[in-house]
């Protein structure tokens, strides 16, 4: 029995036990132990490791094997699940169950997700891949649909997207089989670049669409926000952290391993000016900018974060498509980094919801004194999401920026920075409207979230800080992933990278930053007069003293000036496109139904015969 067998067996066991005992109060412990076991095994695994189980069907061998690329994603998957499970294990889960929702299904669907993703990540051929792909989609659906009717409706909106993606992949699969005669991933890596341009383009579009839908790339992103935002907290964290990255995994296999980036650059659209690789890079760049600025307009913290989740995936793809050592390392590292801070942010939002009952950014405020630890988590989280030092989000984005600079892509670079700036604006609004400003009278007595919730969040941001100060810890896995894909491997140090064209040593940067904070603190607290602490509710504006019952928290239309300028650019084009497509389907369906509701079917039969005979005679 290989290590991969054990990991898969453990995840299956976790799914089974979750559906059997998930309602039990202490089930989270068992889930935690099983997940930890998987992490340990995955981390210590020799690469690549095969599973013992394989079978042959219709002439194709189906098997599983985990390499460095898959292992990188697998570790993040299991880690994210561990964080979610421990969050679920305490008071949050109790409340969830007390509200009449099913903990069994929540645990079960989470475990099913992990199992499905591991199967996907370890697939050795396209059939195993497709099996994992579909299982992941429907397990994801299950997780999204938990909890409330709103969640169910959001999940149902995901269905056509998921199925369209799956069918695109399946279409690509059968064409691949027809053209290359093999479905083995390694075999395809050598066979696919030899296909002609037209065939390669078809495969690229089919597979690419499938993976892009899962990843939420433009223009297929609309399903993701409500589906991720409305799921129950622990589920949202898991979904936001890793779920849609399966699309990136697929794209990595397709673009880098099978088609290869250089072959991709040969597929030119406008002779010599614009090739398939540019198109992908621009899709990624637009995916960074547009969803980020949509996030800026959200008034629900969960939706805001979900939109950012879409935006951040653009950095990952962009890094991967640029494809040099630093760029791809940045893109892949961002997967890990995003998982740490996004999960922490989502959990902190749900911690606030746990205490206040709302995630509406116009109904909160001033909670920093009431929930300081949750505030700290959100602060570190948003620093990571915005990509500022000292958190890890900065390092991965820095690598992507650098690779764009060194490869001479000014406009793409500008888009990435624009995305970052938009993110800074948006996340400040998030933390301001939640934790800063006026404390509402009804929130005066609330307490910090329980330890069962704060500890997982703190661990996550702690991880984000640690890998921000010492990115080398995570870059080890990234380098293995690069090697497995056949990308140039970035040479890294514990603190970042060392290069003649500009190094980054986060150990020093973070050290100096905190030394600066220390000196700043000494200057502030050690020098000058002692300051007097004013009560949070003792306030005034424009000369009037304000009391707690007057609402003066500045939260709505936060960036009024900015919106005055860019507001008209929000056209809702994608929503329009989606509803136009739905209407068109509906109309066609009505026409089709009219055929079956015809009054005189015998006449149609007669017509069919006449038409048919006509065809027979004149064909």
């Amino acid at each position, binding site marked *: 029995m290989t290590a991969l067998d054990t990991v898969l067996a453990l995840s299956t066991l976790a799914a089974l036990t979750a559906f059997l005992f998930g309602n039990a109060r202490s089930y989270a412990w068992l889930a935690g132990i099983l997940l930890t076991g998987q992490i340990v095994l995955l981390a210590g695994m020799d690469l690549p490791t095969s599973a013992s189980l394989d079978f042959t069907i219709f002439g194709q061998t189906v098997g599983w094997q985990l390499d460095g690329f898959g292992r990188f994603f697998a570790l993040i998957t299991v880690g994210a699940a561990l964080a979610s499970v421990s969050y679920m294990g305490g008071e949050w889960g109790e409340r969830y169950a007390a509200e009449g929702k099913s903990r069994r299904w929540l645990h079960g669907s989470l475990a099913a997700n992990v199992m499905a993703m591991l199967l996907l990540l370890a697939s050795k051929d396209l059939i195993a891949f497709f099996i994992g792909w579909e299982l992941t989609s429907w397990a994801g659906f299950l997780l999204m649909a938990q909890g409330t009717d709103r969640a169910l409706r959001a999940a149902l909106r995901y269905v056509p997207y998921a199925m369209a993606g799956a069918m695109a992949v399946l279409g690509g699969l059968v064409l691949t089989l027809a053209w290359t005669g093999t479905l083995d991933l390694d075999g395809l890596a050598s066979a696919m670049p030899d296909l002609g341009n037209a065939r390669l383009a078809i495969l690229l579009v089919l597979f690419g669409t499938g993976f892009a839908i899962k990843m939420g790339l433009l223009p297929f992103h609309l399903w993701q926000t409500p589906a991720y935002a409305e799921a129950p907290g622990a589920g949202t964290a898991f979904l936001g952290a890793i779920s849609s990255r399966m699309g990136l995994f697929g794209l990595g296999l397709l673009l880098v391993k099978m088609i290869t980036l250089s072959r991709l650059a040969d597929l030119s659209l406008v002779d010599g000016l614009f090739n398939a690789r540019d198109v992908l890079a621009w899709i990624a760049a637009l995916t960074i900018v547009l969803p980020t600025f949509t996030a800026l307009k959200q008034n629900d913290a969960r939706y805001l974060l979900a939109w950012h989740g879409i935006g951040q995936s653009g950095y990952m793809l962009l890094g991967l498509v640029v494809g040099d050592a630093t760029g791809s390392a940045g893109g892949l590292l961002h997967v890990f980094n995003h998982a740490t801070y996004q999960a922490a942010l989502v959990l902190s939002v749900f911690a606030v919801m746990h205490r206040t009952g709302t995630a509406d950014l116009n109904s909160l405020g001033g909670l920093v004194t009431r929930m300081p630890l949750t505030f700290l988590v959100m602060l570190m989280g948003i620093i990571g999401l915005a990509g500022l030092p000292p958190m890890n989000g900065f390092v991965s984005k820095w690598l992507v920026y650098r690779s764009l600079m060194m490869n001479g892509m000014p406009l793409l670079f*500008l888009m990435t920075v624009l995305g970052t700036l*938009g993110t800074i604006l948006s996340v*400040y609004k998030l933390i301001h409207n939640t934790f*800063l400003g006026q404390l509402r009278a009804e929130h005066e007595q609330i307490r910090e979230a329980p330890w069962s919730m704060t500890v997982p969040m703190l661990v996550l941001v702690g991880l984000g800080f640690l890998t921000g100060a010492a990115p080398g810890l995570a870059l080890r896995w990234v380098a293995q992933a690069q090697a497995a894909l056949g990308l140039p491997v970035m040479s890294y140090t514990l603190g970042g990278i060392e290069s003649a*064209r500009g190094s*980054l040593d986060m150990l020093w940067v973070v050290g100096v930053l905190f*030394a*600066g904070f220390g000196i700043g603190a000494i200057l502030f607290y050690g020098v000058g007069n002692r300051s007097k602490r004013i009560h949070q509710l003792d306030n005034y504006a424009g000369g009037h003293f304000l009391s707690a019952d007057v609402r003066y928290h500045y939260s709505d239309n936060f960036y009024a000036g900015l919106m005055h300028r860019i507001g008209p650019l929000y056209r809702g084009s994608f929503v329009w496109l989606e509803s136009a497509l739905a209407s068109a389907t509906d109309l066609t369906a009505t026409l089709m139904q009219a055929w079956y509701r015809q009054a005189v079917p015998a006449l149609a039969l007669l017509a069919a015969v006449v038409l048919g005979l006509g065809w027979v005679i004149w064909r």
Partner: protein
Amino acid sequence: MNTIELLTELAVMPLVAFVIGLAMVLMMRKIAAKIQRRVGPPLLQPLYDIVKLYAKQTQNSHGLLHDIGIVMAVGGYIAAETMVPVPGMNGIADKSGLLTLAYVTMIPSLGLALGVGQCANPNGSIGIARALTAMLAYDVPFVIIIFGAAWVYGGNNMIDMIAAQQLGGIATWGVARMPLLAIAGLFAMYAMLGKQPFEIYVAPAEIATGPMVEMGGKHLGGLFVMQCFQLFTASAVYVSIFLGGGENWPLFLVKLFAVVAIPMSMAFVFPRHRTEDVLLSVWRWPVLIGLAGVWLAMH
């Protein structure tokens, strides 16, 4: 270089930056006074101001985060100064680079924003919303310049940039190699310093709105220190990219003060832009000029 030397540099660089920044504040006020036909403040006035603010009797704090915001604002810049090479001292400039510096300088802004937010004064929050919008505006041309510089000098290490410029005198300066970017950079720096017409978010004329509304005593003193650092950082970065950095201290100082003096001499004759107009004016000319400059530099 041994560790002791490096640590000494790390301690000295912020100090030097602060002193230069103080002098720049003084110069700024003097320029304003000259334009407005006043005498202007005495030599040590900026220092006196800081001492006064720290020593004030009334020191109101709206909570821990209000204080920490100021600590982050000052501390972030102290850290940033160690990444700006000055004559004879490189600090950790080779371990961070221009891009990192750009992002480290956002930390003080974030600190300020957090501190203001904690004050629970809606006027302060409005000021922050405006300040962040302004940041969105001026950072766009700024990163275009960073890109151009990295492309022209083949990397984003500031020490290498300076060395490359000092090889062949003025002809190899950034301003000669990428003149359009230098113009855009000046504009971006101008907007970054938040003087007229870009001072909507500070709104010094009406103290009831803007980030400073709840700031007094040490808090305001901290922000004063931050402004000194900001002036120095912006001008030093500009000098390092476009004006050959500092061959020696006197020349370096001349360049630094000249760079700050240019926008300051223009600033006081302008009225004020509304927030949306800040966006428009910064996104129109400097961005277009900057992109044109990048195109020129790459072809």
